[in-house]
């Protein structure tokens, strides 16, 4: 189902991110917003979804009453197989990530720098549960994109010149999907690519902690 028409900017961001997935890709969707991307893919879309705890070919999430106690994704949701799914151990699961077989990962973020650095696992003194599989996903997926609100709860920008929090990986983020815009990481820093409906480039720049290059001509909306 496509939700490009929904008035909820987060849903539109997630729907837009779903269009980043090309047929035949192997994709890992991080916990939180990224997981919702799958709901925006057309039925029967050919993509292999990977989860770190040892599965390729994730099928629909199941309610507790229908769940298999032995079948979860890395976020703890009860999932199901599809025809052609495979289970494997944790070493094989990350062999897939590190050896270049993961085409795309979509991750959440605390901060993203204009250099493509990502911080998404630790806020010293407040939040330090460990990085899980995030470091390898962020460092080794062929394409790393981030889904995040453009600012934090206090309105502070999450897209920055430099990250202030402990890094997950350096220079690997290629693109950021937010509730306001689609922003690419380029050799010159952040570049605005698309705007959420009703948002202006100026509003995006004001919510961004580093310079934002604007495209020539009209800016597409999502």
């Amino acid at each position: 189902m496509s939700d490009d028409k929904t008035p909820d900017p987060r849903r539109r961001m997630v729907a837009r991110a779903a269009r980043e997935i090309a047929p035949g890709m192997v994709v890992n969707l991080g916990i939180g917003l990224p997981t919702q991307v799958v709901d925006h893919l057309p039925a029967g879309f050919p993509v292999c979804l990977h989860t770190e705890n040892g599965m390729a070919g994730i099928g629909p999430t199941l309610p507790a009453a229908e769940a298999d106690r032995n079948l979860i994704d890395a976020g703890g949701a009860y999932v199901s197989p599809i025809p052609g799914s495979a289970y494997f151990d944790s070493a094989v699961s990350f062999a897939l990530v590190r050896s270049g077989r993961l085409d795309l990962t979509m991750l959440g973020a605390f901060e993203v720098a204009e250099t493509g650095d990502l911080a998404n696992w630790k806020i010293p003194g407040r939040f330090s549960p460990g990085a899980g599989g995030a470091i390898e996903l962020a460092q080794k997926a062929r394409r790393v994109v981030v889904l995040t609100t453009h600012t934090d709860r206090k309105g502070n920008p999450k897209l920055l010149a430099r990250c202030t929090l402990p890094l997950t990986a350096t220079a690997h983020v290629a693109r950021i999907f937010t509730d306001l815009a689609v922003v690419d990481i380029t050799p010159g820093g952040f570049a605005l690519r698309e705007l959420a409906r009703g948002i202006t480039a100026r509003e995006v720049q004001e919510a961004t902690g580093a310079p934002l290059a604007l495209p020539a001509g009209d800016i597409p909306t999502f």
Partner: protein
Amino acid sequence: MTSLPDKTASIEAAIAAVPDGATIMVGGFGVPGTPFTLLRELLRQGQTGLTLIKNDANETGMGLDHLIAAGRVRKLIATHIGLNAHAIAAMNEGRLEVEFCAQGILAERIRAGGAGLPAILTDIGLDTELAAGKQRVEVEGRPLLVETALRADAALIHADRADRFGNLAYVATARNFNPLMAMAARLVIAETETLLPLGGLPPDAVETPGVFVDRICPLTEISEEYGVVRR
């Protein structure tokens, strides 16, 4: 024709061979594959000063959490303990030492231990604080981290099916770290939901060869802890 020895043991006797101060690998990623019954018996017998190696710290009130709450765990090597507020509090208060690894590197360090490799070289985490204090070497002009192998005094494994020689098979995402840990300890203890006679597990269906397993403990009950978590 030769035969293969029977390694079945009671859970009590198997766990009794684990001493105070032991380093113990514990299978499981969240609930699936966690050897809850072996952990219960470890709690009951009272071994303390333990170093545990597990992907996570389970959730509060489950599995590893019982041992942490009872003060039996000196150190935990893990990748993510975000679902266990007790463990995070114990870490923050200095009651529990926690060493974090990148998840796939934890898997590889355990696998290296099981494969008799002293260490692996990787670029994972090179630009992060997880690289702090680790030896670096340059190979073909590339800086790499030395990640040393992990081995344990004991590994606690949860299998779906097993035969009496200790050949193991897992199910779905309950596999996770179990086959890796089942190769990387001096004393490998596996609990199994189903115990099969020799020959009951076809040789191509074996996921952990019995050669690596020391004790095989059939479960008489699948307790609530193994069930679906209703959040």
